[in-house]
């Protein structure tokens, strides 16, 4: 299969121009620009806040220089606090075309839309000339998430994705699982899988932080629909979520924006450090997907039992439906029918192999259901993190 070779040497599986608003006040203009390019690879991302946040800046830097991204246009109102010049500099340093359109400087909505549209047209032409390069599983980073979970998620889709992860890691790829808020209760099971004792201690500390954080908030990462679907407690939901990780040793613990440095399985810590600030860590599934993508994920495996329909900007989302009844109702939105396992129509191993095979086909350009339906959800909110310690990463080979 073929991908896109970036000037910084990274290999992408899509060739996208992102239009990024740097405050909610610039979102409409950014949206209108993207709307001119329906059906073309132009995606809308952004940050709504007016006040600066180092996490949001780093997230935007990583997203705008993601391997799937060919160039970026930044939309600024002009008076917001986002460090637009620092973002622009990082994107340009990566060799990608990038520019800022300031709505106040440009003279208002209409002029800003016109200027932005012209820029994107030129950037698309430039992106078409990006050199192609052979890619394989060893070039890929794949993230996994489950959303709209029910009790079937942990029986079918999540373990099947875990098997696909085992195949990917065996092929030299990099796999990321996350949702530490949905791994509560499994602290010591995960620590046992850590590649080193020092990493095991980091994982336990990370999970202690997670539990403390959610206790302070008074609400776990658990939605009403989870209970309707048969999940009773956060620790029961965690068990199902954990099955996504497969059977590989855990090679490292990363935070949003950290790219796994070597092949293996990584745990992404999504819970902010320090005192509880800014509210819930991830207010919905797309907040987590954006973080997986900022860690370099080329594509996302998404397990759902209740029936989520979301996709994402920047990276394709493969939807694996755990519940056979949901699949029959919403098959158009799904890529894999893992509920066959529950009805005795396929084995876990067969569905795991199917998911791994689909990773290759989507990396080669095949469109996922959510891509075909035009889903490009994106959200980024306030958080704060301290950098990971040296014990969190595998030693350089």
């Amino acid at each position, binding site marked *: 299969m073929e991908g896109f070779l970036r000037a910084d040497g990274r290999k992408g599986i899509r060739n996208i121009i992102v239009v990024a608003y740097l405050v909610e006040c610039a979102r409409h203009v950014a949206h209108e620009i993207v709307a001119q390019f329906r059906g073309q690879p132009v995606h809308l991302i952004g940050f709504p806040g007016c006040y600066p946040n180092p996490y949001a800046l780093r997230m935007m830097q990583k997203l705008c220089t993601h391997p799937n991204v060919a160039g970026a246009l930044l939309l600024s109102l002009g008076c917001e606090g986002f460090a637009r010049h620092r973002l622009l500099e990082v994107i340009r340093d990566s060799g990608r075309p990038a520019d800022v359109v300031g709505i106040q400087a440009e003279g208002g909505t209409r002029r800003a839309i016109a200027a932005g549209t012209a820029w994107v047209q030129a950037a698309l032409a430039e992106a078409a000339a990006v050199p192609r390069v052979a890619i394989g599983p060893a070039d890929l980073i794949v993230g996994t998430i489950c959303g709209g979970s029910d009790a079937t998620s942990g029986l079918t889709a999540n373990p099947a994705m875990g098997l696909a992860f085992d195949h990917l890691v065996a092929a030299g790829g990099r796999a990321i699982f996350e949702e530490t808020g949905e791994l509560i*209760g499994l602290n010591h099971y995960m620590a046992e899988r850590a590649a080193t004792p020092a990493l095991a201690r980091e994982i336990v500390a990370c999970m202690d932080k997670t539990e403390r954080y959610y206790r302070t908030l008074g609400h776990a990462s658990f939605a009403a629909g989870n209970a309707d679907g048969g999940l009773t407690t956060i620790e029961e939901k965690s068990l199902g979520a954990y099955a996504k990780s497969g059977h590989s040793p855990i090679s490292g613990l990363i935070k949003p924006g950290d790219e796994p440095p070597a092949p293996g399985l990584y745990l992404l810590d999504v819970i902010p450090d320090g005192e509880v600030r800014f509210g819930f860590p991830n207010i919905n599934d797309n907040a987590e997907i954006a973080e997986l993508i900022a860690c370099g994920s080329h594509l996302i495996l998404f397990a759902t039992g209740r029936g989520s329909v979301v996709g994402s900007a920047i990276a394709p989302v493969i939807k694996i439906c755990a519940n056979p009844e949901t699949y029959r109702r919403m098959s158009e939105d799904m890529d894999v029918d893992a509920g066959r396992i529950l009805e005795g129509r396929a084995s876990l191993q067969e569905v795991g192999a199917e998911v791994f095979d689909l990773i290759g086909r989507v990396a080669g350009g095949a469109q996922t259901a959510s891509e075909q339906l035009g889903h490009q959800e994106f959200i980024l909110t306030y958080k704060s993190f301290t950098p990971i310690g040296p014990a969190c990463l595998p030693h350089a080979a």
Partner: protein
Amino acid sequence: MSAPPALLRLAETDPIGVATRDLAAGEQVVLDGVSLTIAEPVKLGHKVALRPIAAGERVHKYRVPIGSATTAIEPGAAVHTHNLKSDYIPTYTLQPGEEFAEEH
């Protein structure tokens, strides 16, 4: 491949089974040679007690604790938020009495 049984026991020592389809009240289910009468309607993916569970007992699924029983549970009864609570963080649902409290 034959259809799986109506209830799935995920680990030998688990006191609960998981419904692989919607089960009706009064339905007879045989699991590992033991016959069980389903006490109330149980939806796909929901849990059923396979043996008596004492109040306060830690309930396991896949051999891992998923919470503690808040009352004694009879075999064949549904096991859910009405009789099982988290040992970590409370579960909130849209059921009356289980909603997240409003702040004023």
